[in-house]
């Protein structure tokens, strides 16, 4: 058996974790990336990486609780076995990163320090200042460079993935890509193709994502027949700094280290925040969620900030919606040591030192929970079969998806500091299965007929030539992109309504037509980044439509997907008996809703390029779905009634 040839697309955490592990398993690895890997979007991850640790264990924590927090946080939309496996692996992953030299913050005794993050009551999050993603990315970049020396990994940076090469049976035998400097289009035969291509924030115009996060590569696989799952679940992060080019994230770790979110009780109080006395500040998260406080999960935090600004009219400013995120009461030395990276960002872009006064923040599009559909093989005990070729494999045989571009781990809402662990876990875990699958191939990719690759290469070459041949009289592609971002942000972020979604779908379909004939401003055949942008713009539409259609059809509230018209009934009666009756009705509706909607949305593109949706059962065999309340004031009666009813049901059965 010759060495398996693997091509990985994407040089972020997931792609590089897979690359180094596959190199260790003696594969010949190609690693393709839009940018040098050190510049990948993973470097923007700030707050940390989650796992059970020696400290939390002694307070009663275990892997099972990390798993439970993750599925509860995700509103039970994940298949549970892969999540359980990830939680089981998480401590080993952080140990490995520690061995690779990641500069995790330390306690006075020299152990790794941990902080608390949203959606848990344990301090599970290891961190390296407030630039944890950067530090993890660099450690993996270093390992990849080490394997380059031995010739195990070959880098193709500044290459744009254009599509897979499928044989007559529909199995992937390689991919086609374009060098963004020479503009050469080339086919790469490979036995396994791994997509680690990240999120799609640019579909929303401005987001916390980097400029490479167009979603184009995932969309190209989708257009080649891959399934895309749970696309409508888009995380809007509670705290970002609005900017004209992007929304810059201020990590949840600011709250994890004691930062507090508030607004003046008096609407648009014109006093300087430091002048506003404690009793005139409304710490709305702490008041509404006394148990979790400022560390409620992101979907809830975002909706509450939105509610305070929009519905209660308490935005700090009149013409710009924002709330205060305050760390100015915390010791400066601690802030510098643990949060330096994010405080510098605020200072550099806003010109205000957050150590001295409260930051002004507002929610911004941040993360795609949905992504390429992929598989797993379940063990009887609920974990995963080690080294199974099904692991992370998409419905296209020979193509795998890992990292943010897959849909496996976060359900309807991702918990903070779970993305880094999911990226590295899926990258490492996919490797043995990839090798097993490649070993059982009838004929390696290198021996496939050259005509198979030539045909695909020629098709992409023709598409590229057609783009270059376009004149510049069509719509301005940058304006089309801005309009797409505006429509998507207005209709498919914090609050969703069916009439607005219908309207948005029609607008997006119209913009798609405009994009198909938009102007091309650069006909150069050398380092033409513009043509690459225009191509990516076109590829945003299948995903945008999938997001809108998924949101339109899902008539419920779950995690990040919030439709007030289908919200659960309030439990607001004063009379205790009536409250209990309301709570019973609430629980009944909750069960009914889960029967209808606790399902994975699976999108496929039809011949016209329209997404068609179907729904798959979710494996919730390990933890039974339960109401997601996070100790909401007034929610206690629901919890009480829910527990009674569950107890009665289990006695009856």
């Amino acid at each position, binding site marked *: 058996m010759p060495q398996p040839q693997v091509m990985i697309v994407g040089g972020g955490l997931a792609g590089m974790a897979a690359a180094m592990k596959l190199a260790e398993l003696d594969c010949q690895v190609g690693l393709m990336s839009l940018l*040098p890997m050190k510049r990948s979007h993973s470097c923007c991850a700030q707050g940390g990486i989650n796992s059970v640790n020696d400290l939390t264990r002694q307070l009663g924590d275990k892997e099972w609780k990390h798993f439970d927090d993750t599925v509860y946080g995700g509103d039970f939309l994940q298949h549970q076995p892969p999540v359980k496996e990830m939680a089981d692996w998480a401590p080993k992953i952080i*140990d490995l990163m520690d061995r690779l*030299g990641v500069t995790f913050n*330390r*306690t006075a005794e020299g152990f790794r320090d941990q902080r608390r993050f949203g959606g848990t009551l344990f301090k599970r999050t290891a961190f390296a200042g407030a630039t944890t993603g*950067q*530090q993890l990315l660099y450690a993996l970049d*270093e390992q990849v*460079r080490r394997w380059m020396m031995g010739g195990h990994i070959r880098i193709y940076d500044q290459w744009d993935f254009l599509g897979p090469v499928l044989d007559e049976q529909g199995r992937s035998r390689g991919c086609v890509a374009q060098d963004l400097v020479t503009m050469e289009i080339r086919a790469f035969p490979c036995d396994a193709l791994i997509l680690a291509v990240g999120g799609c924030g640019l579909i929303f115009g401005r987001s916390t994502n980097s400029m490479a996060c167009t979603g184009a590569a995932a969309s190209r696989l989708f257009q080649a027949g891959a399934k895309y799952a749970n696309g409508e679940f888009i995380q809007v992060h509670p705290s970002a700094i609005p900017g004209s080019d992007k929304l810059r994230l201020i990590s949840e770790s600011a709250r994890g280290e004691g930062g507090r979110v508030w607004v003046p009780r008096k609407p648009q109080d014109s006093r300087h925040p430091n002048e506003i006395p404690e009793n005139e500040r409304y710490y709305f998260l702490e008041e509404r969620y006394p148990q979790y406080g400022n560390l409620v999960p992101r979907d809830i935090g975002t909706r509450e900030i939105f509610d305070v600004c929009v519905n209660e009219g308490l935005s700090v400013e009149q013409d710009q919606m924002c709330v205060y995120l305050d760390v100015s009461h915390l010791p400066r030395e601690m802030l510098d040591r643990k949060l330096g990276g994010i405080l510098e960002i605020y200072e550099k872009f806003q010109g205000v030192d957050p150590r001295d006064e409260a930051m002004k923040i507002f929610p911004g599009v941040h993360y795609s929970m949905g992504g390429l559909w992929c598989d797993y093989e379940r063990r009887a005990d609920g974990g995963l079969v080690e080294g199974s070729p099904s692991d992370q494999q998409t419905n296209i045989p020979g193509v795998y998806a890992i990292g943010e571009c897959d849909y496996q781990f976060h359900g309807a809402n991702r918990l903070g500091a779970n993305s880094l662990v999911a990226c590295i876990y899926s990258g490492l875990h996919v490797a043995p299965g990839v090798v097993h699958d490649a070993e059982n191939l009838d004929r390696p990719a290198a021996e496939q007929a050259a005509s198979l690759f030539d045909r695909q290469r020629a098709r992409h070459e023709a598409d590229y030539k057609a783009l270059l041949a376009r004149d510049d009289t069509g719509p301005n592609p940058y304006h089309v992109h801005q309009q797409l971002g505006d429509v998507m942000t207005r209709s498919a972020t914090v609050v969703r309504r069916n009439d607005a979604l219908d309207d948005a779908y029609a607008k997006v379909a119209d913009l798609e037509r405009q994009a198909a004939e938009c102007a091309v401003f650069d006909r150069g055949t050398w380092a033409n980044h513009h043509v690459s942008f225009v191509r990516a713009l076109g590829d945003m539409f299948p995903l945008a439509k999938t997001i809108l259609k998924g949101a339109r059809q899902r008539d419920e509230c779950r995690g990040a997907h919030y439709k007030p018209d289908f919200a659960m009934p309030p439990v607001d009666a004063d009379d205790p008996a009536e409250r209990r009756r309301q709570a019973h009705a609430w629980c009944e509706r909750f069960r009914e809703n889960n029967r209808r909607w606790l399902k994975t949305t699976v999108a496929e593109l039809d011949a016209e390029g329209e997404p068609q949706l179907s729904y798959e059962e979710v494996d919730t065999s390990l933890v039974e779905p339960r109401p997601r309340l996070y100790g909401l004031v007034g929610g206690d009666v629901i919890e009480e009634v829910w527990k009674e009813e569950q107890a009665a049901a289990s006695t009856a059965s």
Partner: protein
Amino acid sequence: MSKQTPNIPNPPTDARKPARQFLVRVLRQDGPGQKPYWQQFRLDYEANLNCITVLQRIAELRTTTDGQKVAPVVWECNCLEEICGACTMVINGRVRQACTALVDQLLADRPEEIELRPMTKFPVMRDLAVDRSRIFTALEKVKAWIPVDSYLDMGSGPRQSQEVQQLAYLYSKCMSCGCCLEACPQYLKIELERLPDETDEQFEDRLREAHMRSFMGAHAIAQVDLFNANPVGEMTASERLDALTAEGGIQVCGNAQNCVKVCPKEIPLTTAIARAGRKATVHRLKKWFDR
């Protein structure tokens, strides 16, 4: 919740805006080895612009001050938070990242015009995008990694004091942007021309060879110091010191100390160079005595 739909608003406009419009001059170049030329653009003033938005507006606008329709400027960028290092260029004569170069500040210092040029120590690919692969080759040369036995589970890494971690973190923030190299008088541009019968691979190998022999620069010297300070990295310290004292190593440093002044991450590069220099000297002497 009410019927209102979410919007993520723009920052408010500043009443004290310096001008309604402003000028931007960009040094363009169509490809490697080609003649550079200037183009000027006039943009509407908006509050809180940075040089990324400036380049985006130019791409949209397409028209120079003399009415010529031009292709969008090519430049590299990704994170826009000054953590990926991609958008490094020379702005008003100073090497820095375009994302943190705020228009209000630039115009306050020099109201007439903003000037954007590519870095001068790296070959221009096109316009403001340069080929910085030499930076990564230097990291390969000094073996800037921890040589772990395997990626299997072997427990945690070594315990460390807060002080050691804080020091390492300072150096591990290096984003390989190249500012220190642009400012260094000893770091000279290497630009090879492709031979007519050369394949991609042959050209890359020849370029890599040239990069390996040339001066590694402050960033790589600091990385030697970082990895040799790690308890496991220290086990292979002599390999890194060999690289540090080979051709293109620390001896080329002329101690101009420009590097530390331009580092956007405020890495104490000269401290690292001094420390690495002492260790390199000891290493050289030791090797000499051991002969």
